């Protein structure tokens, strides 16, 4: 018999903890050619904006060591077309759907939340706080606790009580715990981390930035140590708040690393680009790792690395290769 892999985002139960990361699973249709999106813990949409957006010029991607820089710029059809053409397809298939939203002002986020409020089939709203605040000289919301909290509060107020609101945070702040706490105080039911820190690459042949946009978001295994650290710090400070961990998850071991740090679910982004079957594979690997460690319930693994040193839950590590 398999392990109990149910994951809980506040009061919402997911059958398993492996989600797609926002902006990395297309509309769902593309991934569905490879595996069943209804089997995901949940499918997270790209960040939906009020109006259609053409995004940034190309080149939009550059590879870096164990990382990927992207500057897609939230290209998307806008919320109306999303509701008309994209969401119904996911709903029909019984997919659990986390809708990510992005905006330029707290009011725009709230308006998006209102547009989504009466739409059936939405499992949770994820608030992408890594958007520039057009009322504060383009300063990203996630960089400032009070701006982030204002957005969260306005989305929470506009969203049905039984739909959790997830605040998605960036690592490139001086104090991620402070931003996390502000979001929770603002009404966030759960947190997602990490969004991509800002990075840059220069093509030494053209002697120009590799991305047309100059800077881009860094994702992939290169940033996993930052993700683990953020999840760890926030879980230590706010142990009761569910965290969706992400950043460089490519294997079940990576997923377990974030879970041990305090994530109750994980999202897979960049790994999908290399392996379109990454989500079911990672879930399989995670289940096996849990079982090998005698952990019958995923919930028992969440935050387990925080237990005091020498405490007794260090069970069954003997089944792994002996460490010299």
């Amino acid at each position, binding site marked *: 018999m398999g392990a109990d892999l149910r994951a809980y985002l506040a009061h919402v139960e997911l059958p398993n903890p492996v989600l797609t990361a926002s902006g*990395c699973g*297309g509309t769902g249709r*593309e991934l569905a050619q490879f595996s069943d999106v209804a089997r995901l813990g949940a499918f997270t949409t790209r960040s939906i904006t009020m109006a259609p957006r053409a*995004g940034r010029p190309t080149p939009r991607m550059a590879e870096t060591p164990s990382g990927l820089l992207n500057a897609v710029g939230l290209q998307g*059809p*806008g919320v109306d077309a999303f509701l008309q053409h994209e969401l119904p397809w996911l709903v029909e298939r019984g997919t659990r759907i986390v809708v990510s939203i992005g905006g330029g002002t707290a009011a725009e986020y709230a308006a998006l939340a209102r547009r989504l409020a009466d739409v059936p089939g939405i499992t949770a709203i994820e608030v992408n706080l890594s958007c520039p605040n057009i009322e504060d000289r383009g300063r990203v919301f996630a960089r400032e606790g009070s701006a982030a909290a204002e957005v969260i509060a306005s989305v929470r107020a506009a969203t049905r009580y039984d739909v959790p609101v997830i605040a998605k945070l960036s690592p490139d702040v001086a104090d991620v715990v402070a931003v996390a706490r502000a979001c929770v105080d603002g009404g966030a039911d759960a947190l997602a981390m990490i969004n991509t820190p800002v990075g840059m690459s220069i093509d030494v042949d053209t002697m120009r930035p590799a991305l047309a946009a100059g800077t881009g978001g860094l994702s992939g295994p290169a940033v996993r140590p930052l993700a683990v650290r953020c999840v760890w710090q926030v879980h230590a400070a706010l142990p009761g708040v569910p965290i969706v961990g992400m950043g460089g998850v490519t294997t079940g071991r990576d997923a377990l690393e974030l879970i041990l740090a305090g994530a109750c679910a994980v999202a897979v982004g960049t790994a999908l680009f290399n392996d379109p079957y990454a989500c079911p594979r990672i879930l399989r690997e995670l289940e096996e790792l849990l079982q090998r460690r005698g952990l019958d319930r995923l919930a028992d693994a969440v935050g387990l690395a925080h237990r005091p040193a020498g405490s007794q839950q260090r069970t069954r590590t003997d089944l792994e290769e002996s460490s010299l």
Partner: protein
Amino acid sequence: MQVTGTVLTTRRVDAYHALTVVAPGIADRCRPGHFVTASVGGPNTSMLTRRAFAVHDVKPDYGGTVELVFGVRGPGTAWLADLRARDTLDLVGPLGRPFPLPRDPCTCVLVGGEYGSASLFALADALQARGCRVDFVLGAPSADRVFGALRARRMGETTTLTTEDGSLGMRGKVTDVLPGVIADARADAVYACGPMDMLRGVTAVAVEFDIPVQVAVEERMACGIGVCMTCVLPVIGDDGVTRMVRACTDGPAFRGERVRFEDVGTIPFDALGAPGGRHA
């Protein structure tokens, strides 16, 4: 689909490397213009993204093989060039929208720039099977970078070669000779694969002759399967609206006159969702 293929043979073809990989399942389903992506670097590599390659040849041997032809550009292609027979290669494919084929027999000019010609021979096969006449125009900066000249000569009604340094065929670009080829063959359609600049030029010629042109474009791709939105270019839709569409799943084959070549690498101000632009 994903297949862990086995390298059957590797060979050098002038400036290029050719890899034949046993990949049943992928080979079966390939149609002219499809591409595949290869995972590069092996275990614990620092290279995360797959590399895209047109499928040159498909053969039924060993349950199905595909052949890729590539030049070494960076570390990923360098790694591929080092593969030896019996090594494994992780492929995903077939990907993309293949070339649409004409319903009725007609005359087609196939234009290939550098390794872009690799995908034209399967296309020529398919066209000839439908009773089409096929003429080739292949070009590159120099002779060693013209791919497939011999095969083109065998298959094409005519074959015209160009090199910028004059080391093979006519000195110049494919677009210098294309009007003559179209006129001589009384061509009904053009297919082209190669560098963006060439595709732009070829499209201009076809538009001049008022005949349809299909181009297979190349953009930097992070996923190849349509989920990452990094490979976009401005293309005019049936409704006349320009959208930033994905080279990987909406293409790579497009009607040439629909691609806004001048604006590739930008967001045209009148594209759907352009900053400050009108909203649908």
